[in-house]
């Protein structure tokens, strides 16, 4: 069992990325009860935005110096698309039956994917992304990449920052109020449209950070990378209790660790040989989701299933 620490670490890194994307789902859902299925593509465009910045920077530039600029570039693209989607794709449908914005979201997701595929030069194949170096650090029996450290640190900073923002700032409290009851919040003088835009923007920002982390970690990005990552992040959000930002992060981590451990250990259980392995990681992720929803329908950190009057 001496691979356990390494597998836990693998899961932690993967889970941090799921968590970062899941926050975008959960905030939007918490405030407007919309599952933004285009969020995976917002994550993808963030990565492409960052790559574009890297490509226009002079050759041979130090990656550490370029990284802040790449983050800004990726964030600009993602936030712009997230806010644009809210303004032009979702706001006109607010108040419409819940199915309408869901369909728009799926349409938007396909449109963004195809737009990158067709218009981004060379995006029909994987695009190389700069890396922070490939020499791992060894902590005990665990080997850790610089890319992974970036990912975990970025996720922690985003999370703590968001928690502080929501708890202490005026806007953050307005967000809580809107999430609880948008109509009453509006009566209390809160500009709910502004709050919704902020929720989309924060989701986009975090997705961009996750997109850059994805590129750094795997060294390549793809026009269709948002689909699977988005699905996993959505699962993480539900697992953690959709609408709860801490739940999103926790759900991401649980999902990542579950995947890593399922890949590594399920095949060792007698009689389960055929059901383990890398190819089954997704299956076990969804089995976990189903089990949690059966036992605790509101998710790990969800408080209750909102039934508003």
């Amino acid at each position: 069992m001496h691979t356990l620490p390494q597998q836990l670490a693998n899961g932690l890194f993967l889970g941090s990325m799921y968590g970062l994307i899941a926050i975008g789902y959960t905030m939007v859902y918490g405030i407007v009860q919309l599952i933004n299925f285009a969020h995976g593509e917002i994550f993808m465009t963030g990565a492409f935005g960052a790559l574009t910045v890297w490509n226009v920077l002079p050759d041979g530039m130090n990656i550490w110096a370029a990284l802040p600029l790449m983050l800004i570039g990726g964030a600009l693209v993602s936030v712009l698309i997230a806010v644009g989607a809210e303004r032009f794709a979702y706001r006109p449908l607010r108040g419409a039956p819940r199915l309408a914005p869901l369909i728009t979201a799926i349409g938007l997701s396909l449109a963004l994917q195809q737009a990158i595929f067709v218009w981004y030069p060379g995006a029909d194949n994987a695009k190389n992304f700069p890396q922070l170096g490939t020499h791992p650090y060894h902590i005990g029996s665990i080997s850790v990449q610089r890319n992974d450290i970036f990912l975990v640190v970025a996720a922690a900073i985003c999370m703590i920052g968001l928690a502080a923002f929501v708890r202490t700032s005026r806007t953050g409290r307005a967000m809580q109020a809107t999430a609880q009851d948008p109509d009453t919040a509006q009566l209390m003088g809160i500009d709910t449209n502004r709050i919704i835009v902020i929720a989309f923007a924060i989701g986009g920002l975090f997705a961009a950070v996750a997109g850059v982390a994805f590129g750094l970690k795997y060294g390549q990005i793809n026009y269709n990378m948002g689909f699977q990552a988005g699905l996993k992040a959505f699962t993480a959000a539900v697992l953690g209790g959709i609408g709860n930002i801490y739940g999103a992060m926790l759900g991401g981590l649980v999902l990542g660790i579950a995947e890593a451990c399922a890949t590594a250990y399920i095949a060792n259980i007698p009689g389960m040989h055929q059901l383990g392995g890398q190819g089954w990681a997704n299956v076990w992720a969804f089995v976990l989701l189903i089990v949690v929803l059966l036992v605790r329908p509101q998710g790990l950190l969800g408080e209750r299933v909102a039934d508003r009057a």
Partner: protein
Amino acid sequence: MTTGALTLTACGSRSDDSKKSSGDDGGGSNITLTIGVDAPLTGQNSATGLGLQYGTQLAVDDANANKLVPGVTFKVKALDDKALPATGQQNATALVQDSNVIGAVGPLNSGVAESMQQVFATANMVEISPANTNPDLTQGKDWATGKKVRPFKTYFRTATTDANQGGFAADYAYNTLKKKDVFVVDDKQAYGAGLASIFKSKFASLGGKIAGTDHVNTGDTDYSALVTKIKQSHADMLYYGGQYDESELITKQLKAGGVNIPLMGGDGMYSDTYIKTAGAAATGDLATSVGVPVDTLPAAQNFIKAYKAKKYPGDYGTYGGYSYDAATAIIKAVGAVMDANGGKLPSMNDARSKVVDAVQKTDFDGIAGHVAFDQYGDTTNKQLTVYQVKNGKWTAVKSGVYTG
């Protein structure tokens, strides 16, 4: 113009559409026939898929320039299957419904071929793949037990099968590289899983040990858990059955995880894109591919020159030469059918099935070796090559004929 006129008339007429003269070629009777191409032209696998289209195009250009079949001008109709079986089947249907299409070159992926074979067989139209390597396609599902049955007489290929490729790789790994413990991973697709299982049984029969096995999903990106497993197994090599899209990520994560063992794969990995994307991590990795390096063949020099002159974005290296030969086999078959029919093309339905029979009798020296087919539709050319990544390039390290 000619094609347009033909398309309009061909549906209604049974026997005389070939006699239409266009008069734009000096007055002689001239007809236009189309050779279909099906391959992934966009998305995953497109780097190698485009090689099929351009290899065919060059064969057609040469045939037209040299008047290989007097009175016939050939054209290429290339359809994109995106490496998806369902799309490949739609394309096959579109090709057989186009009454100008006499035969098809493609596809790239064995899994796609599975969905297309029946469509071509029903229409009695010849399909020659320059790239499919799964033995099932020509020898039936039970080929491994020795019960070989050819499922479709319209299907041929100019690439040799995985039975040879996997065995050749196992032989090289065990006897030349002296590897003893190999971890085997595949992508669960027709091509990858087939190749991996052939490698596995051959490697074990040579006396090697299988350190572990696993399967991945196409489209996955995170292989860290798999890498940890491989590390723990202390394997001295990783064999991967699948395409470069996944293997380039696996080799990168493997080496980043501190596991410095080579990754070996089949022709699905033998692509410049693999090296470009995997970067330094690819150094020392190996891939087998069908045939010998096209650039070492004297007959292929004009082809390579022409290919490079057109500045095509795809690789000719893997399948361009075989596509050229596949298209040439169809063109020559058309010539043979017309010769036997007094210099005229029979009605399209008739012509298609006669071309199938003529392709079966193919026998000529192509640019990538001798082109002829056995009773299963497999090429009689069983040459294979092992390539290794050295200094950022695929370098041939061993060529040979594998006989089992």
